[in-house]
């Protein structure tokens, strides 16, 4: 349309700008909030009808406030104000008994009995893990917690402060461990953190900082300023060598040979170093490869023998695949070879990696084996939850992609898998894995009970995760797929780089919901007599030395508090991630 002719006197032309005014007073601030949310609905008395409504509102508000007060006061009374916090070591149940029960406390007393918890806390966390070997669990806890902390505390503005905080935490933990268990090992952990800083600072820092994409966003304080680098390097190197000698020295008096000690400590050293100065990518890779392997060896004791003949056959098969892939891709076997060469090469590489793992697991590191039957408590809760969480998401993503695949076989297999696992209760799954599965296996095959439960929980959670992820995939507009295809990105790259990052961001609430559900569902392993945190609490309740009426309430309060801390942490983290990732959707 051609531009219209607006002539004559009917038009309007603004000659001065309309002023920008602040919002009305009762719209903002605390007073405004209180007014709008609490008092506005009960302040209208202009007509009889409105007055009646306001009166009803006042009544409802007052009664809700009263009930809330009663509940909260009762809870705080039990958990905090009336609770017994400390008692003599040998007082046992008498510390929390009323006069009628033979103790000192008044007749109507009702409060938590925390001496019970402090007497049992080792049992609640480690269950029957041999006391002399607890350091192994502690190292796994420590490395895991620091790794998660590093990955969670992404985009911190200042690496030095994080490093310093971690050193303080590490040394503090080391001292705590030594205080509690009287082991020199705790000190060694702290010392090794220092070694780690030195080694990885030297190996990683320059390259890592230079390639860190976050560097583009603005200058960050480097760990050390550039001018002093050379001196610091020399000092660190001297420190590293000196401390390394000191730290390995105790091994000579122990049960392990020097080689075993070195093999045991090197991964710890590398990981603590990576935790302190590695980029998120390094830490992430470490937490997904080295850490689980190391944790498995430490917690179980390692030394899983795969028969020598089996290893040889496996190695030969791996070599055959690698060779077929290598020559096939170079056209040695014509077109068929070229087409299959890539797959053969991939299979060969995966097989080689698994072979490496099998060999590493077979090495005798001089650790006493700890059978999973003596695992329990918070440790089992965390092992089941973490393994379930870590494996269920990738598996769920694959299933979701499979369910939307254009290949009918893949699609139907995914649908069958998802619908099967979603259709059975977790208790059934666990029960089947524990009771039914051994019936189908040959008699001499001993399949660890914890491992069976782990697999069951993992597959169960993966089916739920798949449907959550599928929801995200369906929300991605077709144009995103086409844009990626038009640029020549193949299926996997399109999914990994373009579609999944957007889809997973969309469904973070659903994913974390499933994680939280999974975390709490771990208590169901109780029915196949694995004792998770809740199971350990229940087992502790049978101790007659602590038999008082508040014993059970206290135990369950503690179990609930621990579960709540973990779940609330996940929930907050998901909110944080949502906000962080929303930047791409600005506007």
């Amino acid at each position, binding site marked *: 349309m*051609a531009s219209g002719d607006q002539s004559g006197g009917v038009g309007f032309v603004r000659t001065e700008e309309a002023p920008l005014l602040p919002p009305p007073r009762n719209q903002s601030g605390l007073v405004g909030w209180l007014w709008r949310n609490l008092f506005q609905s009960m302040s209208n008395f202009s007509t009889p009808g409105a007055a009646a409504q306001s009166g009803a509102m006042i009544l409802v508000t007052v009664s809700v406030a009263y009930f809330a007060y009663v509940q909260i006061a009762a809870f705080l009374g039990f958990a905090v104000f009336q609770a017994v916090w400390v008692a003599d070591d040998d007082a046992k149940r008498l510390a929390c008994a009323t006069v009628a029960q033979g103790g000192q406390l008044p007749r109507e007393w009702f409060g938590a009995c925390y001496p019970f918890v402090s007497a049992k806390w080792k049992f609640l966390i480690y269950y029957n893990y041999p006391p002399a070997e607890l350091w192994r669990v502690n190292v796994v806890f420590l490395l895991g917690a620091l790794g998660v902390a590093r990955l969670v505390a992404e985009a911190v503005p200042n690496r030095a402060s994080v490093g310093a905080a971690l050193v303080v935490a590490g040394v503090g933990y080391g001292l705590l461990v030594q205080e509690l268990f009287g082991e020199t090992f705790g000190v060694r952990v702290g010392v090794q953190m220092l070694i780690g800083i030195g080694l990885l600072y030297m190996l990683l820092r320059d390259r890592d900082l230079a390639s860190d994409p976050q560097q583009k966003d603005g200058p960050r304080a480097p760990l050390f300023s550039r001018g002093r680098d050379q001196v610091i390097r020399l000092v660190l190197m001297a420190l590293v060598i000196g401390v390394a000698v000191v730290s390995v020295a105790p091994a000579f008096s122990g049960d392990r040979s020097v080689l075993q000690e070195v093999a045991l400590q090197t991964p710890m050293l590398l990981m603590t170093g990576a935790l302190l100065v590695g980029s998120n990518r390094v830490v992430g890779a470490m937490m997904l490869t080295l850490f689980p392997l190391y944790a498995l060896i430490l917690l179980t004791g390692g030394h899983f023998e795969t028969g020598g003949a089996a290893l040889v056959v496996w190695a030969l098969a791996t070599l055959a695949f690698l060779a077929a892939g290598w020559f096939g891709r170079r056209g040695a076997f014509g077109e068929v070879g070229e087409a299959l060469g890539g797959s053969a090469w991939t299979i060969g590489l995966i097989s080689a990696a698994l072979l490496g793992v099998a060999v590493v697991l077979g090495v005798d590191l001089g650790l006493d084996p700890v059978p999973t039957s003596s695992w329990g408590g918070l440790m089992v809760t965390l092992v089941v939850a973490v393994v379930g969480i870590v494996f269920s998401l990738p598996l769920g993503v694959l299933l979701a992609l499979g369910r939307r695949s254009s290949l009918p076989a893949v699609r139907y297999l995914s649908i069958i898998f998802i619908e099967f696992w979603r259709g059975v209760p977790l208790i059934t799954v666990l029960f089947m894995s524990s009771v039914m599965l051994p019936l189908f296996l040959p008699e001499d095959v001993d399949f660890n009970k914890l491992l069976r439960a782990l697999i069951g929980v993992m597959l169960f959670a993966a089916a739920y995760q798949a449907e959550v992820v599928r929801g995200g995939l369906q929300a991605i507009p077709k144009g*995103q797929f086409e844009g990626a295809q038009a640029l020549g990105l193949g299926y996997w790259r399109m999914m990994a780089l373009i579609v999944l990052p957007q889809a997973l961001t969309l469904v973070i609430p659903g994913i974390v919901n499933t994680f939280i559900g999974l975390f709490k569902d771990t208590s169901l392993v109780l029915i196949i007599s694995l004792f998770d945190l809740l199971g350990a609490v229940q087992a502790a309740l049978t101790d007659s030395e602590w038999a008082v009426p508040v014993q059970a309430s206290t135990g369950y309060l503690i179990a609930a508090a621990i579960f709540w801390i973990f779940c609330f942490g996940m929930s907050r983290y998901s909110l944080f991630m949502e906000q962080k990732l929303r930047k791409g959707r600005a506007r």
Partner: protein
Amino acid sequence: MQGLSDGLVADQSASRQASAATDEVAIEMIGLNKWFGQFHVLRDINLTVRRGERIVICGPSGSGKSTLIRCINRLEEHQSGRIIVDGVELEEDLKKIDEIRRDVGMVFQSFNLFPHLTILDNCTIAQRKVLQRPKREAEEVAMRLLERVKIPEQAMKYPGQLSGGQQQRVAIARALCMEPNIMLFDEPTSALDPEMIKEVLDTMVDLASTGMTMLCVTHEMGFAREVADRVIFMDQGQIMEENEPEAFFTNPQSDRSRLFLSQVLGH
């Protein structure tokens, strides 16, 4: 369509770009047919595009013009007939599809930028993952092309922070980063506010002057007059008329194209 008729009037006096077409064949379609279910959406399409040629495809909505150019890089699959792009015949083989997609850039009506990546990453991701270029080189290429579409200062922003016209220029730069021999434009200005159409058209005119082989589905008749070597008019899945722009606009041959032109240019 205000810009359209204005542009046409103004451009009648403007000098047309000289044709860069050569004798080499870039795209060849022979007896192409496609159905969506029972609906016969492309009917016996025969089209040869020479290297360096600029073609504008127009026609009423639902006439199959978008489907036609989407067949060229296999965003749509044809059921019979042949498509040969730079000597490679499009068939089931995934490798050949990849080869062709690397050779053919595409710009969409809805931009299809990746909202979770910065403008710079939008432009480098395919270079790095498909062409295996090192990061630094990919970024240099991307910045050069962002400068060419005149928005280098937006490189660190996210697509959601840009206006529609800017987003479409980024989309053009993103496609050009892959150094394609052929560019497909699928109604690149249809989703834009009138104020932003010109900046995108200017970019396309600029691109045409470099001798790029271009196929544009568009209703911008001013653009067609200025740069097209050939205008193709489609209706109901068939090519109804094919002519030089001057002849097509001043003297359309079929009744259907006369009606279309009178409706597009009539107000």
